[in-house]
């Protein structure tokens, strides 16, 4: 299974590097980040065994860390995103 995951990750890397040179306008950013998130999730779930762990707490830790990171990013961006208004 690990080999399959590995192959998937390598393919995704090639794909994302290739797409970067194709002009999709704003979607370049979206695609790059979606692929990165997909790759990261695969690593967390399979290589880091989160998919198979019986331990709920691990998932709680991961989710809350991401939650607070999102708070940091979104609430500070909320300032920058609305400065030009008013």
């Amino acid at each position, binding site marked *: 299974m690990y080999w399959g995951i590995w192959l998937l990750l390598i393919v995704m890397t090639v794909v994302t590097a290739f797409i970067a040179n194709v002009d999709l306008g704003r979607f370049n950013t979206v695609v790059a980040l979606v692929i990165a998130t997909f790759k990261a999730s695969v690593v967390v779930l399979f290589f880091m065994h989160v998919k198979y762990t019986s331990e709920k*707490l691990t998932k709680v830790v991961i989710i809350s860390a991401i939650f607070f990171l999102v708070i*940091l990013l979104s609430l500070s961006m*909320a*300032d920058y995103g*609305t400065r030009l*208004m008013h």
Partner: protein
Amino acid sequence: MATTANLTAERENYLNREYGVSSWLLTVDHKRIALLYLASITFFFFVGGLFALLIRLELLTPAGDLVMADTYNKLFTMHGQIMVFFFLIPSIPATLGNFLVPMMIGAKDLAFPRINLLSWYLYIIAGTLMMHCVLTGGVDTGWTFYTPFSTAFSNTKVIEAGLAIFINGFSSILTGLNFVVTVHRMRAPGMTWSRLPLFIWSTYATSVIFLLGTPVIAITLLLVVFERAFNLGIFDPNRGGDPLLFQHLFWFYSHPAVYIMILPAMGVVSEIVPCFSRKRVFGYHFIAMSSIAIAVFGFLVWAHHMFVAGISLYSALVFSALSYLVAVPSAVKVFNWTATMYKGSVTFSTPMLYAFGFIGLFTIGGLTGLFLAALGLDVHVHDTYFVIAHFHYIMVGGAVMGFLGGMHFWWPKISGKLYPEAWGRLAAAIVFIGFNLTFFPQFILGYMGMPRRYWQYPPEFQVLNVLSTAGSTILAVGYILPMVYFTWSLRYGKPAGDNPWGASGLEWQTQSPPTTFNFDQTPIVTREAYDYENMPLPEEVSLER
């Protein structure tokens, strides 16, 4: 009682089990590490306090006549940095927390004893670096390190101070990590989550902030260091950098850090009030959950430090509204403590006096927080002495009162000795009076418009400043007294017995001072916390007042 006393003297405990320097410096016993912390934070408290006194002396007269302007700027900077990062943040968690968390949940030690020792060493390395910085010139950026002053304009030892706080951050993180894992994994059989003492709940909430907040200040200060040391341009306005970015990152940690300081003190008060009311705590679940709520909401309000800094109008509105949310759980706690005394059996022992002091001063500090979260009013009082008074009511009136209350409450357990009760009450009264005299005038000064961090000031502010300086000397006496009689009691104090207060916590069910592994056998918990209706009244603190 006398027989207990003799037994105490003979029994083996964590203090007399081993002697010698290495038995302390290489210890992995959480109780000894707590004492190592106690000694080190006391040192930093008095260093920071000395700076505070010098600040107050300088402000006795409107002219800048005692020290030079640069010296004054360094004094308030290092007062802030030392008090915040080297005293308040580790104060209760690293001393009382370290000592009590395993005992309160019926564990032998923390989950990672060696990491616990490592975090003390990190603290000492950071503290040494900080003291080196202080002794070789100091730093003058204000404890807030605002850019671009800290990155491009200050000529002082910003890198050293930044690295000291960076390293200290890892000490905090490891302590928090240890507590969270311990509370999850090391609870004695029967110690369910709803039986946890409230001190554990608040320490747990504090640890969550340690884990999620501290890394952000660490990276922020590291970026400041990089900018100074390697000429990177991250906050530099000349290279398109936004000075407010630093403030966002800084306050993302430093606002929750306020809750790092106050939550453990709330935990202490939640232990003291039921004990000296001989009664269950009122609304256990609400107090427990309010600790968690404070920890979570605390992360959503940071930009209320930036209302006049140039953030967007809309985000100011959002942050102001969120700030009021975090005030609710704090209010809930105060009401619950008060309600706990209803139909209780209240004694005015020293820890209880500190708890009263805490509730009173924290209430004032919390209410004045409402002033600062109100947008239009904050414009006027921001960066004035009003803010100084407000956060000293929370941090000194709250956190330090809680710390002293906790030290008195658990001193019999820590040392096995009783401190002199009359002196304890006297010191509590002196601290309370000195504190209010020092900081209440500053509210008025702030509304009058005296800006903070002023070395000299217009003469019409003098009367209030003189009052404040007078109060600070009284406060200093109040802080020195406990240190004297605690030390005295180590040798001459009466033996305390295992449970002098008749308190219900697990830590009181073992001997005083405890053995190295706390309990002879792992306790099995069958009762809820604070079931004082089943606790016999202690004779020692009974009726004579």
